[in-house]
C-alpha cells in the first residue's frame, strides 16, 4: 500500500510548525508517532500534501511533575509514559491504561498527543483525560489557549482544535484515591469494545468524589457525571453499582460494528464499569 505523494518537513520548533500550517492550510497535517495517520494515508483515506513531522521539537517532549500538577508533552510516547516512575506513582491509572493500548512496537511510536488529538472514538487516552479532568494546551497563530478535555471532543475525528493549531501538552492535578482502567477487547492489542476509566476518592469509609469516563461507546468519549453522582456518599454496594451502571447506560450511544451489536456493547459496558468501580473502590 503506497500513500499519495507529499512534501515532508521536520521543523525544529513550534513556530516553524505553525508557519507551515498557516502557509498550507487544509493541505498540511502534523505527524507524531504516525500509528493512526500513516495507516490512513496508506489506505488513501487521508491525503496530506504537506506532512510536518514533530519528532525534533524538544518543547513537545517530557513529563513534569510539580507538586501535584502533572504536565505531559504531546510527543511523549506511550512507552515513555509507562516507564516513567514518577508518573506511575503520581497517576497510576495512566500506566494501567497505556499498557492496554496496542502492542510494544506501537507503544514505542504512538504518542500521548497523537492519541488525544486523533479523535478516533476507539482511542483510549481521550476518555482517560476526561476522567482526570485534564486541560489541553493548544498553540496557534494567535497564541495559546486551554480547553478542558471534557469539552474537546465534538464528533468522530472532530475536535475543538483548529486546523492551524497544534496540541502542546496536557495538564492535570494528580488524582487521589483508587483508580482502575478496565478494557474489553477482542484480542490483545485491539481497540476497546468498551472501556472504563474510574477514579474514586474515599473519606471516612465513603466515596467522597468519583469520576467516570467511557471509551468507544459513542462517537466521542463519554464522561458520565450521572454515574459518578450515584457513587457519591456510598460504600459502592451492589445497589449503588447498579444505579451507576444505569446512569452510564443513559449517557452512552454505541453503534453496531464488527465489535458487536448495540445490545451486546451495552451489556459489556455495564460489566466493564462494574469491574472498574469495584477495583477502584478496593484500591481507594
Amino acid at each position, binding site marked *: 500500500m503506497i500513500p499519495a505523494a507529499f*512534501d515532508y518537513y521536520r521543523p525544529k520548533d513550534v513556530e516553524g510548525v505553525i508557519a507551515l500550517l498557516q502557509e498550507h492550510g487544509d493541505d498540511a497535517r502534523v505527524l507524531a508517532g*504516525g*500509528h493512526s495517520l*500513516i495507516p490512513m494515508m*496508506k489506505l488513501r483515506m487521508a491525503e496530506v500534501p504537506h*506532512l510536518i513531522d514533530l519528532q525534533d521539537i524538544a518543547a513537545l517532549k517530557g513529563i513534569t511533575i510539580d507538586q501535584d500538577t502533572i504536565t505531559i508533552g504531546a510527543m511523549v510516547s506511550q512507552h515513555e509514559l509507562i516507564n516513567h516512575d514518577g508518573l506511575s506513582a503520581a497517576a497510576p491509572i495512566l500506566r494501567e491504561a497505556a499498557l492496554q493500548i496496542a*502492542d510494544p512496537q506501537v507503544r514505542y511510536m504512538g504518542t500521548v498527543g497523537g492519541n488525544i488529538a486523533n479523535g478516533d472514538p476507539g482511542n483510549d487516552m481521550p476518555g482517560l483525560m476526561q476522567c482526570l479532568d485534564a486541560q489541553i494546551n493548544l498553540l496557534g497563530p494567535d497564541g495559546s489557549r486551554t480547553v478542558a478535555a471534557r469539552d474537546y471532543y465534538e464528533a468522530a475525528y472532530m475536535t475543538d482544535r483548529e486546523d492551524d493549531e497544534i496540541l502542546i501538552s496536557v495538564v492535570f492535578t494528580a488524582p487521589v484515591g483508587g483508580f482502575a482502567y478496565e478494557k474489553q477487547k477482542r484480542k490483545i492489542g485491539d481497540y476497546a469494545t468498551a472501556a472504563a476509566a474510574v477514579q474514586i476518592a474515599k473519606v471516612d469509609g465513603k466515596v467522597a468524589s468519583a469520576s467516570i469516563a467511557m471509551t468507544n461507546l459513542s462517537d466521542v468519549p463519554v464522561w458520565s457525571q450521572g454515574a459518578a453522582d450515584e457513587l457519591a456518599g456510598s460504600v459502592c454496594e451492589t445497589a449503588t453499582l447498579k444505579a451507576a451502571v444505569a446512569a452510564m447506560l443513559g449517557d452512552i450511544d454505541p453503534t453496531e460494528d464488527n465489535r458487536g451489536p448495540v445490545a451486546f456493547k451495552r451489556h459489556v459496558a455495564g460489566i466493564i464499569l462494574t469491574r472498574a468501580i469495584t477495583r477502584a473502590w478496593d484500591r481507594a
Partner: protein
Amino acid sequence: MSDKMHIKLNVNGEDHEFLAEPRDLLIYTLREKLNITGPHVGCDTSHCGACTVTLNGKSVKSCTMFVAQANGAEITTIEGIGQPDALHVLQESFREHHGLQCGFCTPGMITRATKLLEEIPNPTEKEVRFGMAGNICRCTGYQNIVKSILAAASELNAAQEAAE
C-alpha cells in the same frame, strides 16, 4: 510526485546514502533499495510485526514508518543480530527449541525478542507473551517461541554471571 529527498541511514553498522521519495515506507526501502530482506512484509497494516526492526533503540514496525521519518537513524535488522556461521543466542535457541516452522515471522520475532531481553533481562513467561504481543505467528501456536526466548534469556544471564 514530490521531490526526492537525500536520506542517510545507518543499517547494521553500515552507512547508506541515497535519494528517496518521502512517502517510501521504511520496510520497502530496506528490502528493495538496500537489499536487506530479513525484515518481512506480513500484513502491511501494522498488525503482524514481521517487519520489526530496531530503530534508535526502539522496536518499530517498519511498514508504518516513512523513510523520511527514519532519516538519520540507526537501524538494526535480523542481519545485524547474527550470521549463519555465528548465530545469536536467540537464533540458536529458536533452532534448538523448534521456535519456528515456516520461518516467515522469525526475523521479526527475534528482532523484537532481542529488545525485549534488553527491557527485561529475566522475564517471566507472562512477560514474554506480553512483550511479544505485537508479533503474530501463523504456525507454531507460540508455545515454542516462548520456550526459545525463555531459554535464551537463561543462557544470556548465565553468560553474564560467568563474566562477572
